[in-house]
């Protein structure tokens, strides 16, 4: 290796290792494309509403993904669905990460909080989450915001567990004791020493939590708890189920299903690639 390569920071090394992984790069590209579709939805297709003339048509040149039982274009539904599915996925994940970070770091740093917070996380993880989310979402009334909050509310325990296990290894380090000795406040130590140490782990967590949140959103919408005024991939499946198109019009379910699969598989592969790239022992 040349002298220049030796000076690479860990972050740059991770990036260069990541760039050499075709699966990781492909996943990243797919995710960027999906995000573009979400942002540019109005430019790609008109918002699906009202009744159309061509009902239950299979895919054709005019309707790429076919039409549903009231004549709406399934392609437009999937495009607009990308927006809500990704928005709910990302915002629920961000919220869950923030709560998980707070709880995880507090549990690791403040020894007295560790046991009660640990019990709270254990208990939350051993409950069947979907029925609980259904109950809360039904009571709070269906809307995009409800979905994001409800999903975040029941997704943070896993993040908290991961963050705690990482942070607990940092707390006994000499530099943390040194910071305490020089009179650093708890908040300052957490911000300056603990958070930078757990951020790399959180990187993977963000990706996985987002894909789980997308699946949760699709599940809730499929059961009829989606925002009635907007489209998401789960909502399209819900409408197909309600109209009885499930067993007849394959195109109404195949395309939203593929969209979910594409998003979730690429996030999973992205996190695997990121983990591999971060593990510098593999590359020599």
């Amino acid at each position, binding site marked *: 290796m040349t002298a220049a390569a030796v000076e690479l920071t860990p972050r740059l090394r991770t990036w260069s290792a990541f760039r050499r992984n075709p699966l990781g790069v492909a996943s990243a590209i797919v995710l960027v494309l999906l995000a573009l579709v979400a942002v540019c939805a109005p430019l790609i297709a008109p918002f699906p509403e009202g009744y159309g003339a061509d009902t239950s048509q299979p895919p054709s040149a005019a309707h790429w993904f076919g039409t549903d039982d009231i004549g709406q274009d399934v392609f437009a539904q999937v495009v607009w669905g990308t927006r809500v599915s990704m928005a709910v996925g990302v915002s629920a994940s961000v919220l869950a990460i923030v709560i998980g970070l707070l709880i995880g770091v507090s549990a690791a740093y403040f020894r007295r909080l560790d046991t009660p917070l640990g019990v709270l996380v254990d208990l939350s*993880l051993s409950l069947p989450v979907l*029925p*609980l989310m259904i109950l809360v979402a039904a009571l709070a009334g269906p809307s995009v915001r409800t979905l994001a909050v409800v999903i975040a509310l029941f997704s943070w325990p896993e993040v908290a567990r991961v963050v705690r296990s990482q942070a607990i290894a940092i707390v006994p380090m000499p530099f943390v004791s040194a910071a305490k000795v020089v009179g650093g406040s708890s908040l300052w130590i957490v911000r300056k020493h603990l958070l930078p140490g757990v951020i790399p782990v959180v990187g993977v967590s963000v990706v996985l939590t987002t894909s789980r949140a997308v699946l949760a959103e699709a599940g809730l919408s499929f059961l009829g*708890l989606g925002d009635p005024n907007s489209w998401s991939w789960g909502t399209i*499946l819900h409408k197909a189920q309600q109209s009885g198109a499930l067993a007849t019009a394959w195109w109404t379910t195949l395309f939203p299903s593929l969209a979910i699969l594409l998003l979730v598989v690429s996030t999973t592969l992205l996190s695997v690639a990121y983990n591999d790239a971060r593990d510098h022992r593999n590359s020599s």
Partner: protein
Amino acid sequence: MRFIGLRLARGLLTLWFAVTVTFFLVRLLPGDPVTAVADPNMTEALRQKLLADFGLDKPLAAQYLDYLGQLLHGNLGMSFRQSIPVTTVLMERLPWTLILTVSAMVVTIVLGIPLGVLAATRARGWVDRVIQITGVTAQSLFVPSVGIFLMYLLGVWLRWFPIGGAVDLDATGFAATLSMLHHLVLPCLSLVLIQLGGYVLTMRTTLIEALGEDYVSLAKAKGVRPGTVVWKHALRNALLPTTTIAGLQLGTLVGGAVLTETIYAYPGVGRAIYEAVGQLDFPVLQGAFVLLAAAVVAANLITDVAYGILDPRVRTS
């Protein structure tokens, strides 16, 4: 016995937590907490009477104690739409959900063990690669999509299996049992496909670890046949962590059952949840969660205790 007592206490704590969380979530949510028991379409007089019946005019602490007391008597309130106790509605449905989840669990284990062994004994070979990639992908599948796919392929297209319901109502005796199994295949298979990936991957990791232990080297050195080493020595020790993971996955299994039952119009608790969502029947939703949480806690307790009896190491940890 101290071990069983501890696990029992843990189970009860989980259950209390589930019940308490629902109680406070229902009452602290934005909007009228009354919606949890009173139908918005009711007349004012009926509504007031119902509120008094449910004790919703009392202070929160008193309500909470009442609620716990009612639960201990198995009372989960009344369904709005069907005017019968929630317990009756759900108990009619519970056997179907149990049949579905237990059969899915059994099939997953029966398929998972040999696949895990296959991957672990050929670690880093191409069989292992295929199993790993399929496992990771299977974990990211959306349950209804899998259900719909299987329904098209095996139900609509090949016509091998019925695509809805749980049993032919005309069938009697042995024919009814056969029809029940016939209806069970597709929903069960959907759940197995979702569960299998995680199970095999865990099995693979723990088995590879077990194969590196000293007692495996000793057995090999003694000249024990390789097959016996894997199946009799290493596998037994690898099963324990795998079962713990299976216990943790119970929540996912229950969630999957809710979605699968919806797809196949399978008359279990999950389908009841779907119907209750459509009708905004909150007591049924609340009762279903409490019931499913209790089922998960009970299943975890049973596996824990069974393994405690089989493997003395668990009792001390």
